[in-house]
């Protein structure tokens, strides 16, 4: 083996590391580029605002966009308050004993359970056992159950980032525990909680597996009337038209992917910017 001088070996290693980094970043750029390049031609106002036609080969994707929005918003509406309250309870009130520690550990680990398992549970519990049928509400409940551990974990992280000494200082002035949380802990944890919430919305907007059997419909060329209706959703629609429909015009598939990508990326970029901003202007 040739023995390289330390200087040269450092230079070489840096080069390899740099190339590895490029290799990791390129696919992101490539995916975005391919989708934009092929999809932008079919992306018109009409495409966004009209019903699908000709077995989905023509027309627009309005019902899919609205379906995704309705499911995601209902899910976040259900999971955010409960999740944040649960995080406050676990972090600020629960006694630090073995049971609490087990619960915290379980919640952290539940965030890593595959989304398709949640889909399975949603089907078993909400669609069949509770007889909600394949519907917006069943899909929203499934997504909210899936996202609950994530919301709790990020909210706890945000609460933990507020120094314990602030709580002590406030309590030592005779201020009650809830008021300390309300006026000291929550305002300072809010940026973290909000960033987490935006990321949650982005994540569940793109999820397909959990709504596959709980909410998504193959083809419904009208808008839902109530939360007990099935809906088309963007990710499932993309899955269908890219795998199940023969002779599907390619640019329509790309345009659908582009819409989904834009929704999800906009929110993620927003969250990243918010995080950098809040970190810079943190008061302590």
């Amino acid at each position, binding site marked *: 083996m040739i023995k390289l001088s*330390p*200087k040269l*070996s*450092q230079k070489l*290693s*840096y080069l390899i*590391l*740099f190339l*590895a*980094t490029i*290799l*990791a970043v390129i*696919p*992101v*750029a490539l995916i975005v580029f*391919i989708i934009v390049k092929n999809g932008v031609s079919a992306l018109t106002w009409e495409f966004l605002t009209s019903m699908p036609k000709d077995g989905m080969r023509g027309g627009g994707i309005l019902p899919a966009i609205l379906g995704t929005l309705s499911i995601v918003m209902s899910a976040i509406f259900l999971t955010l308050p*409960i999740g944040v*309250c*649960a995080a*406050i*309870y*676990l972090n600020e*009130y629960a006694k630090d004993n073995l049971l609490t520690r087990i*619960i915290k550990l*379980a*919640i952290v*680990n539940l965030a*890593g*359970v*595959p989304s*398709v*398992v949640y889909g*399975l*549970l949603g089907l*078993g*519990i909400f669609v069949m*056992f509770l007889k909600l049928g394949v519907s917006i509400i069943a899909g929203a409940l499934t997504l909210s*159950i899936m996202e*609950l*551990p994530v919301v709790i974990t990020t909210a706890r992280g945000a609460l933990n980032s507020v120094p314990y000494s602030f709580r002590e200082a406030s309590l030592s002035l005779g201020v*009650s*525990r*809830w*008021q300390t949380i309300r006026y000291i802990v929550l305002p300072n944890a809010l940026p973290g909680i909000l960033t987490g919430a935006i990321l949650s919305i*982005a994540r569940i907007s*793109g*999820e*397909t*597996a959990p709504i596959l059997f709980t909410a998504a419909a193959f083809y419904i060329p009208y808008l839902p009337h109530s939360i007990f209706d099935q809906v088309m959703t963007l*990710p*499932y629609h*993309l*899955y269908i038209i*890219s*795998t199940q429909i023969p002779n599907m015009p390619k640019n329509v598939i790309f345009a659908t*992917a582009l819409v*989904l990508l834009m929704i999800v*990326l906009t*929110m993620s970029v927003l969250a990243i910017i918010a995080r*950098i901003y809040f970190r810079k202007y943190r008061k302590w």
Partner: protein
Amino acid sequence: MKKIINTIIETIIFICGILSIVFVVLIFGFLFKEGFAFFKDYNVIKFIMGQFWYPDSNPALFGILPIVIGSILVTFGACLIVVPIGIMDALYISEIAPKGIRDVLKSSVELMAAIPSVVIGFVGMVTLVPFVKNLFDIPTGLTAFSGSITLAFMAMPTIVTISEDAIRSVPWQYKEGALALGATKWQTIRRIVLKTARPGIIAAVMLGIGRVVGETMAVMMITGNSAHIPNSIFEPVRTMTATIAAEMGETVRGDMHYKALFAIGLVLFVITFIVNFIADLFLGKNKNK
């Protein structure tokens, strides 16, 4: 008055706390109940060691060996690609990259995590799959190999961000000590930083594996969905997640097939729970230092 509001709010918080715990317990109780119900009617050994997954034949066969092997193959291949690249990436971002582009690099890696798996699956289908087919001159590009490449990039953000945290939390005194003794920066990184950050990096790899094992849509679209035991990575395979996603729509509540899919869900749950638990142990180790 203030006291009453105080009490009401604290009660609500308490109820939410308990409620979310009850939810979690109930839900997984349900998974266990439905999953174990399957083993009453079907031998566990036959389930785990069975080489054939023919839910529609008569009698139906529910051997998960082919799909377990499918999952392992795809996961293992993805790890071979993502672990070295991911760690190098984390090292570059945290130790070497100039400050100005550090945030840009980190954010772009994180953006990968935000792209929905169905979008990645679609792009993989129209680009990677034909590429693999032509490159190796095989009958189909829908193979375990294509799946591994796709999943490697999907696990990249998890591995990079968590390893990077671990590397950054190495106390600067360690590095300074080594540099003061005349080591080059690279020697310091290799000998001191990597060693100290090892628990965190192992945790990152475990969490990455968890992500790969649980990935559904992209795998279903790219690996070809064929539930037989493959001879090489250039053949179509089917994973556990894809099996659930592909077949759940056809089942009737309570029949064998339905219960069998719950049993697979149970297996997946146990695997990911263990993987995450190990990651958690290593993360805790890193923190205690």
